[in-house]
């Protein structure tokens, strides 16, 4: 009742005073509900419980190839192995940083250029925008295979044919520049995402601001650098955070093109986690790697969740 009593100042509808029982209104927020519970239980069962299990596994030595060793508790030994004695761990971490940062920077630059171009009033803009989203929508594993065989293959690839035309030597992309090749494919996939976010940001800039800049005699570059870019801060934050979190999880592109090789040169942390579990069968060690990945992702996600809750507060008030 007390909840409803606070409400009428905001909501006065005819007939409201006649109600005897409190309605479950937005203003009332009775708080009694179980409708979110099925979803909550489902998500806890499929994500939180497995994660807790991963933490538990990570404190044990468990190698499926040596079942006689069983499942002994080893404390933090798996983490120490990762940080200290595994020669692959730090190279893998460095690969991860390179892939995420490299693809993100490329996608941010290309996405910004596309967004600025497609924000101008030109004929067929809607169709062009739709077409430009295709790299992001197309199945990543499929497109990785197409990139590998139709474009970056030293024998049948179009890129090498173009190189040949201008007199450059053939390059075996996936053995000479494995990580950079994957970085390029991933950036290609994420460029439309950045473009869409920046376009949404551009559309939220009021026309008056741009007109004022024009009246003040600012040229196109100054207008972008001094006015558009700062106003797009939130759009860039969103592109960066979402891009980072999803590019961190890149899997199909690596699996299809290089399978993590040569050596571990294209293993990222999630891929290395997968490989440790599914080709070396070291479940305990892999779980420790997975937990490290989650901790890294939490750091990245915190920034994003801050952005989300900012909006939540503003839309409620």
């Amino acid at each position: 009742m007390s909840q409803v009593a606070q409400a009428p100042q905001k909501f006065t509808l005819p007939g409201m005073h006649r109600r005897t029982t409190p309605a479950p209104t937005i203003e009332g927020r009775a708080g009694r509900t179980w409708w979110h519970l099925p979803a909550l239980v489902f998500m806890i069962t499929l994500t939180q419980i497995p994660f807790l299990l991963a933490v538990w596994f990570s404190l044990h030595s468990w190698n499926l190839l040596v079942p006689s060793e069983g499942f002994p508790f080893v404390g933090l030994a798996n983490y120490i192995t990762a940080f200290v004695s595994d020669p692959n761990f730090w190279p893998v971490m460095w690969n991860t940083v390179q892939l995420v940062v490299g693809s993100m920077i490329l996608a941010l630059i290309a996405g910004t250029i596309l967004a600025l171009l497609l924000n101008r009033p030109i004929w067929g803009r809607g169709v062009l925008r739709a077409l430009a989203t295709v790299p992001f929508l197309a199945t990543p594993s499929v497109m990785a295979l197409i990139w590998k065989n139709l474009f970056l293959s030293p024998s049948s690839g179009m890129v090498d044919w173009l190189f040949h035309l201008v007199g450059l030597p053939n390059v075996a992309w996936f053995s000479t520049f494995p990580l950079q090749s994957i970085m390029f494919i991933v950036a290609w996939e994420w460029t439309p995402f950045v473009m869409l976010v920046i376009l949404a940001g551009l559309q939220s800039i009021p026309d008056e601001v741009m007109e004022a800049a024009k009246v003040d005699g600012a040229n196109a570059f100054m207008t972008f650098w001094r006015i558009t870019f700062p106003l797009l801060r939130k759009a860039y934050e969103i592109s960066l955070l979402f891009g980072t979190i999803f590019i961190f999880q890149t899997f199909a592109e690596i699996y299809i093109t290089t399978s993590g090789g040569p050596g571990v040169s294209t293993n990222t942390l999630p891929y290395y986690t997968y490989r440790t579990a599914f080709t070396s069968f070291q479940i305990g060690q892999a779980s420790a790697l997975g937990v490290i990945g989650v901790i890294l992702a939490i750091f990245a996600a915190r920034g994003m969740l801050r952005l989300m809750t900012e909006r939540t507060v503003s839309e409620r008030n």
Partner: protein
Amino acid sequence: MSVATTQKSVATTQKWSRFGWAALTYLVVFLLIFPVIWMVITGFKSEVAAISIPPTLFFVPTLDQFAQAINGGFSAYLFNSVVASLVSTTLALILGIPAAYAMVFQMRKKSADNMLFFVLSTRFLPFAAILIPLFVIITRLNLLDNLFTLIIVYTAMNLPLIIWMSRSYFLDLPKEVLEGAWLDGCTTLQTMLLIVVPMAAPGLAAAALLSIIFAWNDFFFAVTLTYTETPTLPIMVAVFTSNEGLFLAKVSALATMIILVPVLIGIYAQKHLVHGLTGGALK
């Protein structure tokens, strides 16, 4: 006179500069999607034409490669992909819409915010970390290589998306209409099914479409959990190349058919794409 000439030349320059920008835009978009265009073209070539260097631009288009790809067991993979994405999306809607309704209309603000935080954080959890325990559980339950497993995993993967999109569309509904429904004596279930869901239908449809794309495009769970018995279309491409060597035209034809679904759906739901992916942080 001179003023008129200057004005005219300014107008001409503007016209040409506008034309130049348009041409540049067309060129950039063309370059961006060229790999897809070339893939589609290659799908209509013969294998000999597909592999020839320099690339052949003029050729007699053939549907042979599409036919071969379809005859190579396409329908079984297609069935798995369609069932996995449609059923998981339906389940995610059944679980997610009431949850979003509770968050927007019923729960106290504090608990609704906590729920949102939880929902978002599950989506950002790296899949690699939960895959290992999931794999162990699934193996113990004897559910490996089972379409049911894939459906459940995709439901979990897409549920956060459905909840946060539904939530943001529910928040946008005019509150007067809902008040009216309650005053008319609708039960909560009636209010949700007869008022809220139909009013938010376009947004909910977009959420469902995005969820279908995510399930359709998934490679990670498909390759680790159901590779052998119930593989989906993205697996077919990988199997195709490793088993039969490289047939560029056939792979291109197959790839074209596979990406057709997410590309068409995505273009159709384009307006909701950003909104959905960023959880409504940007309208």
